[in-house]
């Protein structure tokens, strides 16, 4: 059981890293880009830069040292 847990932790650490929210938002952003790209005449390239612009400071803020 412990080995399975360690195996899972290894891949979690490798793929997700230390902020799961970033991975979740990136996946959602790519999915939204796909949906947007299916609409005729609507450009979809701008969505992911906006996602990065928003999630990067949020992720930084989440890891700032907490005030005592």
């Amino acid at each position: 059981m412990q080995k399975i847990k360690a195996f899972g932790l290894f891949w979690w650490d490798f793929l997700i890293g230390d902020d799961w929210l970033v991975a979740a938002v990136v996946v959602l952003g790519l999915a939204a880009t796909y949906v947007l790209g299916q609409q005729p005449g609507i450009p979809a390239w701008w969505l992911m830069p906006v996602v990065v612009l928003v999630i990067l400071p949020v992720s930084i803020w989440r890891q700032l040292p907490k005030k005592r």
Partner: protein
Amino acid sequence: MTGFALFAAVFLACTVEAVEALTIILAAGTGRDWRSALKGMVAALIVLVAIVAVLGPAVTALPLTALRLVVGGLLLVFGIGWLRKAILRASGNKALHDEDAAYVKELEAAQKASGGRRPLAGDWYAFTLSFKGVLLEGLEVVFIALTFGSNQHDIPLASLGALAAVAVVAATGIAVRAPLSRVPENTMKFAVGVMLTSFGLFWGAEGAGADWPGSDAALLVIIPAVLVVALAYVALFRRRPAAAVAETTPHTAAS
């Protein structure tokens, strides 16, 4: 993307991974047993070669769109992770030279561990510590080389960049045999974070069906734009009360 840019991107990204792997090997070797640490490293390299032999062709045979979507998403997650840490350090919210702290942390953990001896591995703790570190960081090196290479249709050049990075870091490690705090880690991580985020943005969005204005030339705008945004966030978070911390966050694959 020119051949030189591909080589430079892979070289820089792989250098960061190699520095981290070497730090772990140094900690396991000096703290426990050099022979076992080196055995762990060799075992991990054998596993890596097997993975490359099996997955290498499979990765390049994948449909390019699907590959770009998956690779772009992963690079974006890795890149944002690197950028976040680099910005936290550059803005004074995280210890700047945490390679030292990481080395001390690994060394203390190695010295405290009881770890028994195994026939082939020798000191089990040193072996597994080295094995895990090299395998994890090595997987990232393989990942970077294969994906950058396959996307630019030049895996040999990307592999050369990765091998050159590993060789340079290994030679440096052998020469100094000390923590790699002399390598300007945060500057390198900042640059790598910008590159991975930029390529992640480009490939991820393209893989999801978006068409970038100017096609590949869009990268010439994306990379400087990501750099400017990252520097702006450094300035933004520097305005907060100085809160440089001595402790480091737990090791993660992203950096």
